[in-house]
């Protein structure tokens, strides 16, 4: 899909959204019932990590209680069950992102490891005179691995500017993209501002110069149905824990011919075909990139998260979430001294803001006392904060289980905090 078909910002006038009461899935998430600092939890830190539904928790527990075994090798029944569940999860991930073949899905610890894998494996294929193109709005995990790659190889890291509205400066993008660009690495959705980037257009443009494209997807996958073949990207990285799955599991999608051509990354068991002391024949995809015992429970949990998402009316839930975000933005704007940071045309899940009377940290602390969980700081995007000339923001980020009451509490919480300062 292209970014232009994303429905960010759609108001609550869609069919179905008036049944908002029936779309409440919060009952599936046990943690949302807890108290924090003596108050009911309003969890608005979903861009950092999402909570887990009972279905995922039961799947992980079911694995350990029912068929915990190592995958792929053993000669017993439980190992077959574990292998079937692990490879079944890979197939679910394949279908979830629209890949052609499950060999194109590499399990990783998360997005960070997925990006590091690509950056590491490109070491031999780039050199001085080559450029890696990123943007100023990237998460550190989509900056630092490329810096390290450039240091190893003599290639140059080029960052496309971001406008004051928090969008990619397309003029600058097209000026910096060129025949030297070997790889474009860009966020699908900004974790700090919620900007939905026009990745379809960016991918087409980059591929026009023969550049590879990696999309940093963790903020997108829960919300936007992703189809890697329709997008036309070469790599797509995301994390399980930002889409109701466990921590410590994520995936890298890579086109099979590219992955085949890359050298392996970590060495060890699983990734080999045959080993002598002198040399090793490497295993096929995807195992070539999965040295060691994988996170089997995590993969099972991620598969369960995908099943859970598949059981939900996702479009209606997304419309409901978008309406909440829009309400939050509009209500925050009405508060005196509040400035919304980033006003992208297409926004997803996140609202970042500042209050002129206090530091983000003051507001984060005072909201926490009221049971409202937000994130404050630079959101692992220091170059973006530098670009916008601010030390950080207060970030409220929504998921499919948030409710109008969470928005009301956020607004009331900010008003109360303002009264302290």
């Amino acid at each position, binding site marked *: 899909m292209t970014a232009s078909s994303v429905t960010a910002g759609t108001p609550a006038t869609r069919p179905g959204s008036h049944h908002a009461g029936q779309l409440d899935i919060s009952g599936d998430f046990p943690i949302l019932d807890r108290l924090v600092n003596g108050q009911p939890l309003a969890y608005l830190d979903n861009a950092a990590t999402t909570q887990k539904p009972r279905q995922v928790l039961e799947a992980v527990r079911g694995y350990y209680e029912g068929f915990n075994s190592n995958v792929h090798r053993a000669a017993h029944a439980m190992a077959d069950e574990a292998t079937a569940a692990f490879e079944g999860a890979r197939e679910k991930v394949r279908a979830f992102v629209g890949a052609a073949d499950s060999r194109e899905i590499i399990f990783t610890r998360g997005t960070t490891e997925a990006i590091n894998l690509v950056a590491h494996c490109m070491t031999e294929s780039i050199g001085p005179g080559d450029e890696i193109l990123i943007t100023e709005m990237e998460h550190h995990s989509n900056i630092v691995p490329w810096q390290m790659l450039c240091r190893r190889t003599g290639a140059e890291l080029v960052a496309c500017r971001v406008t004051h509205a928090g969008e990619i400066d397309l003029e600058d993008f097209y000026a910096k993209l060129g025949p030297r660009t070997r790889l474009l690495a860009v966020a699908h959705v900004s974790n700090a501002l919620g900007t939905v980037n026009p990745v379809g257009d960016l991918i087409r443009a980059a591929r026009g110069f023969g550049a590879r494209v990696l999309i940093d997807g963790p903020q997108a996958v829960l919300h936007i149905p992703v189809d890697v073949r329709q997008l036309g990207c070469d790599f797509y990285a995301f994390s399980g824990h930002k889409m109701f799955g466990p921590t410590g599991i994520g995936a890298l999608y890579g086109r099979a011919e590219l992955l085949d051509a890359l050298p392996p990354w970590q060495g060890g068991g699983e990734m080999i075909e045959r080993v002598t002391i002198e040399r090793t024949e490497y295993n096929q995809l995807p195992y070539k990139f999965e040295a060691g015992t994988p996170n089997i429970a995590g993969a099972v949990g991620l598969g369960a998260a995908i099943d859970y998402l598949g059981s939900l009316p996702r479009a209606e839930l997304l419309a409901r979430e978008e309406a909440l975000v829009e309400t939050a933005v509009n209500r925050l704007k009405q508060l005196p001294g509040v400035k919304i940071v980033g006003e992208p045309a297409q926004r997803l899940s996140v609202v970042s803001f500042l209050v002129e009377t206090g530091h983000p*940290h003051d507001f984060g*602390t005072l909201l926490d*006392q009221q049971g409202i969980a937000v994130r404050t700081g630079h959101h692992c995007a220091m170059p973006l904060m530098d670009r916008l000339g601010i030390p950080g923001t207060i970030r409220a980020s929504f998921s499919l289980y948030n409710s109008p009451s969470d928005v009301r509490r956020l607004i009331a919480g900010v008003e109360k905090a303002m009264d302290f300062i």
Partner: protein
Amino acid sequence: MQLDEIRESFAFFDSWEDRYRFVIDIGRDLPELPREYRVAENIVRGCQSQVWLMTELRDGRLRLTIDSDAHIVRGLIVIVLAAYQGKTPADVGAFDIEALFDELDLFRHLSPTRGNGLRSMVARIRHEADQAAD
């Protein structure tokens, strides 16, 4: 502000609101650090907000200048100063600040995250006092 005043005030508080209003209020009286001292070498790492800290030894006693760009942290600085300002390096080394924080219940109510940098600040002061004592 004296430590005893802080202790007495905290003893009366029975809500988080009272504690925070007090901490924010005492922070308002902390002198602002002039811009020329707000430089990288004075920054205390490990804080979500910026904290600048300078120490000097004058007549055998520690002179601390600390500031932050966050209100709550400025209040915490006033508490730290009440404990350490004008003390000898030996006094600083001997003072059980963890016991004070426990008594004020600071970490339960005022340190939900590593963000306010209270521990980093204290560690740096104690380190500098240590060095001054040598």
